[in-house]
């Protein structure tokens, strides 16, 4: 005589449904980087987070939270006078990281998500003459305070083989705005290192 498994089956599928719904699908990254390993295991915050991805001497920007993304784009719209439609903004809120100057951002939004990865994105301009990176950081912070009423956290995700001056430039951009505390995203390393 075998036991009645109906209830167990119910519970199992309830949990399964829960985990499937809470799992967020991983969006492929526009700039894949190989992060260096470390033994420190602090987890990154889930929300209120902006990630600066540094690789191949380019900087890409990624922001968590749909509402924060939309608000950031609106602030950037005002700053640079580039117009985005409502559907552009919604599309932008669903995107992952990007690395184009603000002028060509609309072109990137119009692309299909599979094409965005293939598109050769030049990185966000960060020179002193046209420092759009600084504006993105500043407006993302403003937007996060407006939307979530919290200070935005920053994380730097750098490629292990990236030259230090490229990282230094990004750190400087953050420090210029008195963001002195941020996270460095690293991979996992064995205990016996």
């Amino acid at each position, binding site marked *: 005589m075998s036991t009645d498994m109906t209830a167990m089956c119910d519970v199992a599928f309830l949990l399964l449904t829960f985990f499937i719904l809470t799992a967020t699908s991983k969006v492929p990254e526009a700039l894949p980087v190989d992060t260096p390993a*470390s033994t*420190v295991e602090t987890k990154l915050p889930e929300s209120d987070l902006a990630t600066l991805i540094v690789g191949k001497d380019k900087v890409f920007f990624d922001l968590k939270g749909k509402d924060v993304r939309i608000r950031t784009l609106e602030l950037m719209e005002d700053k640079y006078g580039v117009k985005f439609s409502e559907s552009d903004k919604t599309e932008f809120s669903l995107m992952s990281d990007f690395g184009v100057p603000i002028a060509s951002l609309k072109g990137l939004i119009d692309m299909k998500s599979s094409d965005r990865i293939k598109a050769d994105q030049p990185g966000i301009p960060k020179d002193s003459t046209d420092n759009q990176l600084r504006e993105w950081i500043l407006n993302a912070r403003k937007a996060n305070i407006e939307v979530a009423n919290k200070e935005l956290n920053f994380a730097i995700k750098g490629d292990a083989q990236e030259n230090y001056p490229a990282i230094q430039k990004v750190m400087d951009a953050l420090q210029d705005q008195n963001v002195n*505390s*941020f996270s460095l995203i690293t991979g996992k390393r064995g205990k016996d290192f």
Partner: protein
Amino acid sequence: MAELNTGDGGGKDGKVRSKKLSSKVDLTAMVDLAFLLITFFMLTTTLSKPQSMSLALPDKDDNEINNKEVKVDENRTMTLLLGENGKLVYYMGLITNPLIAPKDIAYGKNGIRPELIARKKSVLEYTGNPEKGIIVIIKPSKKSKYKNLIDILDEMAITDVKTYAIVNDFLPEETKLLEGK
């Protein structure tokens, strides 16, 4: 309930009975599958979170730095110069009058780590105050890689060095040290 029984073999007493189908189905395989998927989704949702190390840098204000220079005891400072192709040079004290002359050293378990632990101990003996430990100055050169910096920051975490700073200014002697030989 594990089987779709078809009733007891009819026809013993010659009557033909319509076969009764049990309404219970064996759920074992289904439950197995459900739990397998649960395990998969549980692990993928929690394991995909990236890990990070936090870094705090001092305020950047040119005026203030010019006004009040931070004076530190040179007996407590250890300077690490990060160079090209994994080159690592360290010295204690001032570059002009070092307590321990600049020396090349390797990264990792058998290189910088025992040295850091030993220096940390000797500095504590020197000051005799647990709050005044070693001060490590990390100077990544223009040619160093991001990996080198993370490796050193990781060593700081492993050896539990509380005070360290990333400094970008190089003295001429230090540049010579990294390029020399």
